[in-house]
């Protein structure tokens, strides 16, 4: 069970349990008109579904801190829409449904180490390293745009993810990607 909190503890970044689900405070504003009562205005994001809503709390309101835990996992393989991971310290295997993996599936390759988030002991999602390296498996050689700086073309990566890259990238190249923005950073290995 998470600790009990009061309205005075609310702040951006805090994680709460509301109606049995974990929420992150993504925006927070303290308001208090002159002689009136304090209002704690929060924008909350459900950490499982991603849905957001605004709620105003008052002093005297009580909260439950979300019981969250993070553990390092290694991605093993995908089977159907289940993703299988292994705890790097206990070697215990854990699986996660595709919808909980979310956008991270575009960057998951075998043996990649990620942080898995648990809510009350159940896995709810993963967070990736900021940068990963992925191989280009398909690039249309026919694309010959103008060579002015900034020109890009689409390529497909080993995870099936399609991304815009500079024109000089070829099939077999290994690229460095920023997982926070989902964008190309640089080429780390050429196919030749």
């Amino acid at each position, binding site marked *: 069970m998470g600790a009990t909190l009061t309205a*005075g503890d609310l702040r951006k970044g805090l994680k709460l349990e509301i109606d049995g689900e974990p929420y992150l405070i993504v925006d927070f*504003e*303290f*308001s*208090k*008109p*002159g*002689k*009136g*009562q*304090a*209002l704690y*205005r929060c924008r909350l994001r459900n950490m499982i579904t991603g849905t957001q809503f605004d709620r*105003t709390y*008052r*002093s*005297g309101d009580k909260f439950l801190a979300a019981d969250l835990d993070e553990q390092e996992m290694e991605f093993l393989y995908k089977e159907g829409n289940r993703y299988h991971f292994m705890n790097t310290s206990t070697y215990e295997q854990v699986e996660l449904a595709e919808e909980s993996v979310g956008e991270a599936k575009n960057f998951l390759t075998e043996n990649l180490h990620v942080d898995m988030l648990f809510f009350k002991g159940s896995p709810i999602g993963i967070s990736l390293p900021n940068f990963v390296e992925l191989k280009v498996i398909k690039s249309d050689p026919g694309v010959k745009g103008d060579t002015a700086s900034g020109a890009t073309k689409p390529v497909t990566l080993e995870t099936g993810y399609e991304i815009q890259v500079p024109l000089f990238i070829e099939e077999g190249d290994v690229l460095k990607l920023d997982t926070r923005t989902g964008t190309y950073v640089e080429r780390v290995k050429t196919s030749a």
Partner: protein
Amino acid sequence: MSRRDVLSAKRWRLEMRSRILHGMRLFFVDRGFMEVQTPVRTPAPAPERHIDAVRSEGWYLQTSPELYMKRLLAAGYEKIFQICPVFRKGERGRRHHPEFTLLEWYRLGSDYEALKADCLELLQAVCAHVGRYPRFPFGPHWLTVLPPWEHWTVRDIFLDRAGWDPLKNYDPDRFTEDLVEKIEPTLGFPAPAFLSDYPPEEAALAKLRPHQAVKVAERFELYWAGIELANGFSELTDRKEQEERFRECLARRQEEGRDVYPWPLRFLESLDDLESAAGIALGVDRLVMLLTDASSLDDVTAFEPEHEP
């Protein structure tokens, strides 16, 4: 940025703060007000339902100097002002610090209309003193200190922007929420605006207007660019009524598990010598924010409330 750079980057705003304080003092001294100092530590802060005092060795740090200022008024000091630090527990946001600076001024034998006239002259004088007259930028807006300033009553603005009359069916939760969400953000563009005549439940230490069918408190707030800048009122000088309000307030504080302050007996006794008076508190840090186009109090105070040892 290093800690040294953070402080250097605030230089212009801190210089403006210094000039604003100087401008305020010139304004009041020119008009025959006397600057006073009263204890920052007090055995009995003013009972307010929603303001919590910080404890200090069994006493309290002041949440406002108003009880001491009124004791001076009662002793015949006609026009007094003070610029001092005040402390309020648990208040922290972009526009709230648990320690901030108030400018308070009081007039013997006056009502809140005299204070509104003071506000208009004071802000014009201060803006001129710091080179922000008559217009200056604030975020995406151009603000001006030039009249006309809007005058709203609480009833009219609630009917206009929230669709109900708080003088008829007062609801404390709805009142605060609509005030914060629907009304405050619209007040004081481009010139400051007065919001006057509060429901009796929101009177604090203000006098109720006599001989009226619908009771209103002679209290006003001054807003500029959606920011609450000052709160003033015709002072309640009826000792009996003040005692009742304090008793009711302390009882509520006890119910809510808040600190119950000692009975401010000396202040209450002094009301016997006070005929009529008016007083106001203005948030100095917020005025500095406005005049230096800052978005947070953190930008206009040298050290933030959570600073390291």
